């Protein structure tokens, strides 16, 4: 299966030539501009939230939104059926089809770190950089599986495409991504825990400061991703 999936990734890498400008802008230029622009107005204490929040936002868009939109379009055009007929599992197709975006998302995460470090917003060493990689990979998996479950449940491609954008942005700005979890009013806490970005952002931020509890948040995120993978399978995409 690894051989087949790597061939699929190679195919999508070739296909991404046509989308390079958009991928480069949204994965690299746009998040860097956010960090650069807001670095002048954010206080030193909250700089870490600006950086980890932007990385989480990036993960949400490049995994959740991208998987749901590209998979929905491919189902609409019969390509997902073709792939299923070849023996490629839907989850493998989801990960492969968003691989370029996800790769750019991970590269973007490190570029954000470099810019933030250059601007003096944070300091980071190799160990924290490695922890961040673990959190980025798990976050990308979780976002992708959420996108896969959305695709399985919502058959109308136009509705799916819109909701993928709404969730991608909504989960980044209506969740404790750019600010601490403790700022959320108690009555909203249950809702916040339904958002995958809550787990992803905590894991990313805590890995950047080498706080061991990033492992726990990553486990929550992983579990969350697995639940959505199971739901996608139950709803017909396995």
């Amino acid at each position, binding site marked *: *299966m690894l051989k087949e999936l790597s061939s*699929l990734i190679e195919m999508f890498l070739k296909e991404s030539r046509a989308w390079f400008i958009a991928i480069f802008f949204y994965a690299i230029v746009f998040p860097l501009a956010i960090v650069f622009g807001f670095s002048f107005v954010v206080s030193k204490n909250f700089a870490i939230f600006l950086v980890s929040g932007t990385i989480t936002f990036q993960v949400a868009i490049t995994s959740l939104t991208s998987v749901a939109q590209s998979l929905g379009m491919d189902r609409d055009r019969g390509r997902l059926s073709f792939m299923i007929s070849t*023996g490629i599992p839907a989850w493998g197709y989801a990960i492969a089809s968003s691989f370029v975006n996800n790769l750019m998302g991970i590269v973007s995460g490190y570029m954000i770190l470099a810019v933030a470090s250059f601007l003096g917003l944070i300091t980071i060493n190799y160990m924290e950089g490695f922890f961040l990689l673990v959190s980025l990979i798990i976050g990308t998996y979780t976002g992708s599986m959420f996108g896969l479950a959305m695709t399985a449940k919502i058959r109308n491609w136009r509705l799916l495409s819109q909701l993928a954008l709404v969730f991608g942005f909504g989960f980044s700005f209506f969740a404790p991504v750019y600010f601490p979890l403790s700022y959320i009013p108690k009555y909203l806490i249950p809702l916040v825990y339904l958002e995958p970005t809550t787990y992803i952002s905590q894991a990313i931020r805590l890995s950047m400061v080498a706080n061991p509890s990033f492992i726990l948040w990553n486990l929550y995120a992983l579990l969350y991703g697995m639940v959505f993978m199971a739901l996608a399978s139950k709803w017909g995409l396995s």
Partner: protein
Amino acid sequence: MDYAIQVKDLNKSYGSNQALVNISLSVRRGELVSLLGPNGAGKTTLVKHLYCELKPEVGRINVLGGNPCRSKIKRMLGVVPQESEPYDDLSVFENIYYAARIRGIGRREAKVYTEETIESLDLREYRNKYVMDLSGGLKRRTLVGMAIVHRPEVLILDEPTTGLDPLARRQLWDILKNLKKEGRAILLTTHYVEEAEVLSDRVYFINKKIISEGTPSDLRTRFSYYYEVIDYTSGKAYKVKEEELKEFISKLNGKFEVRIPSLEDVYIEMISHA
């Protein structure tokens, strides 16, 4: 009997809507079988079960002697799903080449297979063109290439000629005839009666359930309850029962033509009464 596809008592429902009712059918190796039915008859739903995009609620499916959900079986299948399109931003060669690679075929072998497939489908001229620049007929031929590049034993084509102009449709028919000659089992869904009549060894009339099955000529004779008599003097066409035919003709003055109903007449008669 050496069956490539066997379906037994397949049922499928979407909520309260019963999409398939007790469907049983078979396709032998080297045989081209058509599923003929109107839109919404359940043809695509049935086909999706054959390559495991849908799993049966009730009933059994056997493809090449095994469960079609197993990847070993899927690798022996070639499928052209309904209204599918190749990848616009890849060339014809790349689309067919990667269709081979994702089925586990190595780089060198995949290149050889791809070149041979391009040749057999008469796509040489378009080899390096991006799919987005191709006509509908050429896109469909590329899709067939993606389905056959790995030399499958069973080919499943879901309305492959829908939306094509008459010339492109004929070209695709020729390709299917050649594939049949190579000994592949082919299951074709269509709502074009002429297509089923020209290409098929056997036809299933389907409208959520199997209405009838047989060779095209068998169906025509079996369900021809009347003759069609065209009186060229008056320009009128009459439906006349066999026992009344002689008497009817003797009353005609001038030229006339007697023929048994076409498969299309039989199909419309059966579908409308089903």
